[in-house]
């Protein structure tokens, strides 16, 4: 009932955003999802101008997280799959214990992240597996237990569920139960493309990160851009805890930016403040950050406020300090993610915010979540399911007006 109400409210919001009613009628008659020709909010992200991507070498090298030798180096224009390819190649080059395997990775993988790696580093180090997710994961854990650094690819995050047992019961608990032998599955990194692309439907658009953020022992990471992906993936590979590295597949080609050429790592479990603000904090990760950024720009123009935008980057164990600090400053907070709202990352983050006494006392409005509905990822309605600019904008407005 409640969701009906909010859907209706959403429709009203959408309708009110259309300046010409006659155009609205045309839109309603469409059988595919697109944005209305004169929409104010729900226009597609222009990745070539968004300030969340480094369009110049100066921007790319300005990050304080990069070491001096990288800052003094060159940059290259890369999209997300090329940046991931670079990180994988670096790992293979630096450590002969690194192995890459998964379904079709020897041919480059369905998203081309492993292009040329088998040729450059040998078919004995980059190889295809049968269609055997559970086997891949157990196999990777065994390799990691021997001190190697396996990088397993699950072709789509939607396919990871047969491997769930291995990840939860074997990988995550290894260190906890190995006694005095000093072994762990820490060398293991699992990469998987996730998230919506507009037409992936039930089995190619899921974003199951919160199923893993429930599990102590795992580190769950989702980068927002090529520069971030290269640094975070190298950190994940070098990390001595099993890491789940989820790559928003819509960004593979869409997100292009200048990426430092030298190898570098970015810290795990450390959030990044992408934009400072005073009135509202938005916490997100992965692709929805672009949606959030578009929404907050409009909200800042319309409402005369300033919004702080935080990228969690590592979604478990996550950086509470940065989040709490921001919310104590702004007093208003919203968590945005693509996957289902129920028991999602937003639930954990907002519960943690209200559970922290000092932050709780500073709250001016209830912490809100803007996320996918609690439904499966439907082919026809994927664009409605995934939070769009209008929903985030609406969320900001309600927070301010509370």
């Amino acid at each position, binding site marked *: 009932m409640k969701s009906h109400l909010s859907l209706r409210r959403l429709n009203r919001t959408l309708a009110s955003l259309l300046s010409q009613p006659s155009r609205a009628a045309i839109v309603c008659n469409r059988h595919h999802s697109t944005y209305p020709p004169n929409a104010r909010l729900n226009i597609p992200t222009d990745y070539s101008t968004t300030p969340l991507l480094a369009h110049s070498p100066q921007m790319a090298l300005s990050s304080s997280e990069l070491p001096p030798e990288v800052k003094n180096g060159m940059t290259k224009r890369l999209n997300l799959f090329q940046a991931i390819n670079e990180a994988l190649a670096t790992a293979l080059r630096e450590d002969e214990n690194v*192995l890459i395997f998964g379904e079709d990775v020897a041919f480059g993988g369905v998203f081309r992240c492993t292009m040329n790696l088998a040729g450059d580093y040998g078919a*004995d180090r980059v*190889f295809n*597996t*049968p269609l*055997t997710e*559970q*086997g*891949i*994961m*157990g*196999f*990777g*854990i*065994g*390799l*990691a*237990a*021997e001190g*190697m650094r*396996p990088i397993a690819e699950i072709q789509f995050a939607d396919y990871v569920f*047969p491997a769930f*047992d*291995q990840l939860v*019961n*074997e990988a995550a608990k290894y*260190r*906890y*139960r*190995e*006694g*005095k*032998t000093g*072994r762990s599955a*820490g060398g293991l990194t699992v990469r998987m493309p996730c998230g919506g692309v507009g037409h992936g439907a039930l089995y190619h658009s899921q974003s199951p990160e919160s199923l893993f953020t429930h599990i*102590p*022992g795992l580190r769950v990471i989702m980068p927002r851009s090529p520069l971030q992906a290269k640094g975070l993936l190298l950190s994940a590979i070098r*990390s*001595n*805890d099993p890491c789940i590295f989820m790559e928003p597949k819509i960004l593979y080609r869409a997100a292009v930016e200048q990426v430092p050429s030298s190898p570098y790592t970015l810290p795990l*479990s450390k959030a990044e403040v992408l934009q400072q603000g005073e009135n509202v904090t938005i916490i997100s990760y992965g692709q929805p950050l672009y949606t959030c950024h578009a929404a907050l720009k409009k909200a800042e123009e319309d409402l005369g406020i300033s919004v702080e935008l935080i990228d969690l980057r590592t979604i478990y*164990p*996550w950086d*509470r*300090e940065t989040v709490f600090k921001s919310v104590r400053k702004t007093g208003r907070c919203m968590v945005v993610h693509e996957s289902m709202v129920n028991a999602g990352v937003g639930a954990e983050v907002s519960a943690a915010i209200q*559970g*922290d006494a000092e932050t709780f006392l500073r709250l001016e409005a209830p912490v809100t979540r803007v996320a996918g509905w609690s439904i499966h990822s439907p082919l026809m309605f994927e664009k409605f399911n995934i939070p769009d600019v209008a929903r985030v904008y609406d969320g900001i407005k309600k927070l301010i007006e509370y």
Partner: protein
Amino acid sequence: MFSRALRVPRAAAPLVRARATAARPSTVAALRSVTTNAASSHADKAAVPDADDQPFQVTLSDESFETYELDPPSYTLDVTKKELKDMYSNMVVTRQMEMAADRLYKEKKIRGFCHLSTGQEAVAVGIEHALTKEDDVITAYRCHGFALMRGASVRSIIGELLGRREGIAYGKGGSMHMFAKGFYGGNGIVGAQVPVGAGLAFAHKYTGRKNASVILYGDGASNQGQVFEAFNMAKLWGLPALFGCENNKYGMGTAAARSSALTDYYKRGQYIPGLKVNGMDVLAVKAAVKYGKDWAISQNSPLVLEYVTYRYGGHSMSDPGTTYRTREEIQRMRSTNDPIAGLKQKILDWGVCNEDELKAIDKEARSHVNEEVAAAEAMAFPENKPEILFEDVYVKGSEPQFLRGRTPDENFYFSS
């Protein structure tokens, strides 16, 4: 009705076999089932040397093995008196330890799940005597004997069962989770250890070590999908993996034929050669695994073994083990096929040592286990503090700021 339906195909099977036999007499040998006689090997008593460490030849029963797409191992093997006595002692200590665990469980000192291997000692001991410490063993939850043979002490195993801080996994794992050098557990999920074992084997191959991984699972676990996934990967990549089904006839309380379409577990690899072995005879197990290891490494191929064995007790402590099989069956195996009694008889027959010396070994084993159990019982329980509860979830020093307790005031903050 249901049981008759179940019986039909098995009744029909001999007819098919008889026809096959008539057509191809050479397959007669392959149709024979392996013996479970633990005292079926032979040695020329006159040829047994005086010296403890001088080898002499033992001939295994020609019913010790069955093979699938594989030449059988040699039916003769060299042993020394010392090794036979070691094997005997190992099996006795294992059984004494399991009996101590049984007693402690019934005294309610051990809690939780506990799976004992009484009756199956020859498998763990025979495998260990065929391997080096650089080889790997991985098994499921019936793991006490394997942990012991890989080098864990009785006190660390019993201490673990008792949940003590000095237990082999700091009291965090209990019966199902034990690790040692060359031993990768002790795994609680049925079948999950099998692909992990393939990973272990890959590491050997990749690094060029001439070692193998011995991967054990039960007749129940052999139907898990991931077992077949591991078979496929291991054959595809030519891994030195000795998959091995410990067939003790029952997956918990389900007889093998009720759960498995093909109960010839050594043929389950289909494209992987198989070797079925008398798992009650420690010498046959040793011969099979030694042969299997050399074969797997030299042929770049995994092997699927089947150890035909029997557990005297129930599946776990909560299973009396008598509802799905007759007491007579258990009694018959205990009295005629016991691995320890079988080896004892051979040792005496061959004049390896006399009865008094064996009694001394028994006595020493018993007193060793008693001492170790006493030491385990004297171990402290883990201190009741969060540092212990929250350790080893992440790399020391790189933990998140805190991990959650049930309520915020129980949250544990890492000091680093």
